[in-house]
């Protein structure tokens, strides 16, 4: 019984970070039908920008509580600057094209971004942990946890609910759903599908950058972060069913818990747990937990 609480807290905290990686990827796929390998780059760029602005704020002697808006602003900045631009200049030309071509284009973008990050931010690790430090710790079941870990769990829930509300109860959400259901009919009805694609892609970039930014207070950022994120992101998105936001959330919880259980009972298996889970799920349900063969839902 003593072990249940740490398993749950650690599992959900790990799941929340994994969810932030996968949710934007699955959202972009659900709307644009593009497997975006460059998603990992947006994750790491979000982390670099958050650390850079956070570092500047710390050196300027600003309150550490400002770290939280800085994390959000960093993600918004990355999304605003890169989202519409990348969609309009690269992604747009891959719509309706074979998946191999889409992967090649987005993989090329990923490689370019990787090198650009090294040029701009250098090759060493960067840290900015003010947000983690200022929140302090809590003792649960005799083990001390970072309050920041608990905040991540809450934020992941907020993002799931917000996306649900956005898609089901706002005009923008309904426009997106209409374009997802049938782009041609949507255009005939007067919907600006291009704009919807651009907005959906930008939301995807924002979620990736937010995930990267939120990871930095505990883990910092170093070259290679984007590659690790995209591999894990694809695994989680595939487990949940590509294009399924709730599926990504459930898959993140399963993967998070499986990794934590492995660390407690069979540490050697921890690195492969996401892929073992993916293997088992896809053997039983080839379209993922929430996926179906033909349906295009979000």
């Amino acid at each position, binding site marked *: 019984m003593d072990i249940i609480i740490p398993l749950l807290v650690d599992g959900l905290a790990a799941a929340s970070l994994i969810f932030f990686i996968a949710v934007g990827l699955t959202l972009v796929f659900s709307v644009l039908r593009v497997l975006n390998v460059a998603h990992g780059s947006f994750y790491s760029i979000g982390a670099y920008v958050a650390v850079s602005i956070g570092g500047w704020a710390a050196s300027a002697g600003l309150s550490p509580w400002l770290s939280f808006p800085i994390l959000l602003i960093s993600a918004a900045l990355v999304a605003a600057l890169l989202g519409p631009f990348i969609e309009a200049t690269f992604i747009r030309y891959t719509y309706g094209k074979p998946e191999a071509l889409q992967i090649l284009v987005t993989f090329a973008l990923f490689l370019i971004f990787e090198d650009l990050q*090294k040029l701009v931010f250098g090759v060493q690790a960067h840290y900015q942990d003010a947000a983690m430090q200022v929140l302090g710790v809590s003792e649960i079941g005799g083990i001390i946890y970072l309050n920041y870990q608990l905040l991540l769990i809450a934020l992941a829930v907020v993002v799931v609910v917000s996306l649900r509300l956005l898609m089901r109860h706002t005009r923008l959400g309904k426009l997106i759903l209409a374009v997802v259901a049938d782009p041609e009919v949507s255009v005939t009805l007067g919907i600006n599908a291009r704009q919807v694609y651009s907005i959906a892609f930008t939301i995807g970039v924002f979620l990736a950058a937010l995930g990267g930014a939120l990871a930095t207070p*505990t883990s910092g950022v170093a070259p290679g*972060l984007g590659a690790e994120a995209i591999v894990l992101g694809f695994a989680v998105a595939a487990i949940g069913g590509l294009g399924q936001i709730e599926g990504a959330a459930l898959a993140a919880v399963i993967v998070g818990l499986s990794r934590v259980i492995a660390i407690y009972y069979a540490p050697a298996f921890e690195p492969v747990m996401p892929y073992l889970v993916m293997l088992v799920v896809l053997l039983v349900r080839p379209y993922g937990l929430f996926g179906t063969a033909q349906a295009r839902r979000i």
Partner: protein
Amino acid sequence: MWKLAATLAVGLGVIAGPAAAQDRPERIGMGIFTFTSGPAAAYGMPGRNAAELIIEQINEAGGIGGVPIAPTYVDEAQGGEGVVSEFRRLAGDQSIGVMVAALSSGNCMALAPIADQLEVPMVTWNCDTHQLFLGEEHPYVFRPNSSTVPEFISYAAYLAQKSPDATRIAIINPDYAFGHDAAQIFTGAMKAFNPDVEVVAELFPKLGTASFNTEISRIAAARPDVIFSNLWGADLENFVRQAQARGLFRSSQVVLALGESVLQRVELPEGVIVGVLGDGWWMSPDAQANERTKEFVSAYRERFGEYPVFPAMKMANTILAVQAAYEKAIEASDGWPGRADLREAFAGLELETLTGTVTVREDHDGLVDQLVGVTVASDEHDFPVIGEMVRYPADQVTPPVGEDPMAWIGTLTPDFAASLPKPGSYE
């Protein structure tokens, strides 16, 4: 017929030329392998920086035998295959006289047979795995540094002397040879010094792990007396930041085998057992008594904005060993020494380094003292330094030549730890 034989002899002489004594070159090419990017760069860049500075100082003083060193740096972050390919490419360049490789034990294990095959001297600067020379001879590979066995036995001895009642041990090491070897050696030695010792948690997160929060919970739940880790680079920095915030340093005696390398980067509390995997601490009494070391430390601080952590000192000491070997080879050769001559010179090499002495034994492994202590606040610096130090003599903590290291550890007794110099004895 004799003309044909003469022509063949000349031809063979030309082919064999690079390995034999030859004319004095314009420069001594040196391949230097370390991590200069990625999470491991936090550990590898100080080595890169130290190589740059010590080579500059050697060249300013006239080079080696009047010939300047020309380094070529190779980033080990490109992965094993790329590192091997770069090694082969550099070995094919006859202006390269020696390789200083590598940081990663995995890369050293991969490169050692290639160095033998290509007959190019390879001098390891950081890869400490005892498996390098275990059961296999490498005629062209030399380690003028210590290995994992004396390094991790020393931590066990220090603990046995300082905290004799500690019996519950948790281990968190990186998931590759260096981490697994260290766990085996440390556990073996701890059990030899105190048979009541039990391992209550043993974790091996993969290299490059960013979040250790679950591992920290797992360790905290096991309630260990001692937490031992040989994490390094950005992994160590992440672990320290997360573990300290979660109180792990207050509830257990933490031993960070490579802790000195992060003293200037993260806030380590007082009382953490740290060391330098050898004697390479820039502030040790021996280092402070050496004018050249003080000059090196000062120049390093001025150029790179921080003091040289122990990977920097290991690199500098290794290049001094290469210089000493070249000087020995020059004295012994008629012309400029070739790669084979340099290899001969490394056997039995003894020299004074920036932080002590090193001897290259007949099995090509090094004898270096082991410095261990605990973190204490400093009046001079805004980061903790090492106090309550001990300097274990190399010959006391290193297995004898030809003896299986793990079998040797099995012969250790509590009396062995008691016979070693005591914590605080090195002042």
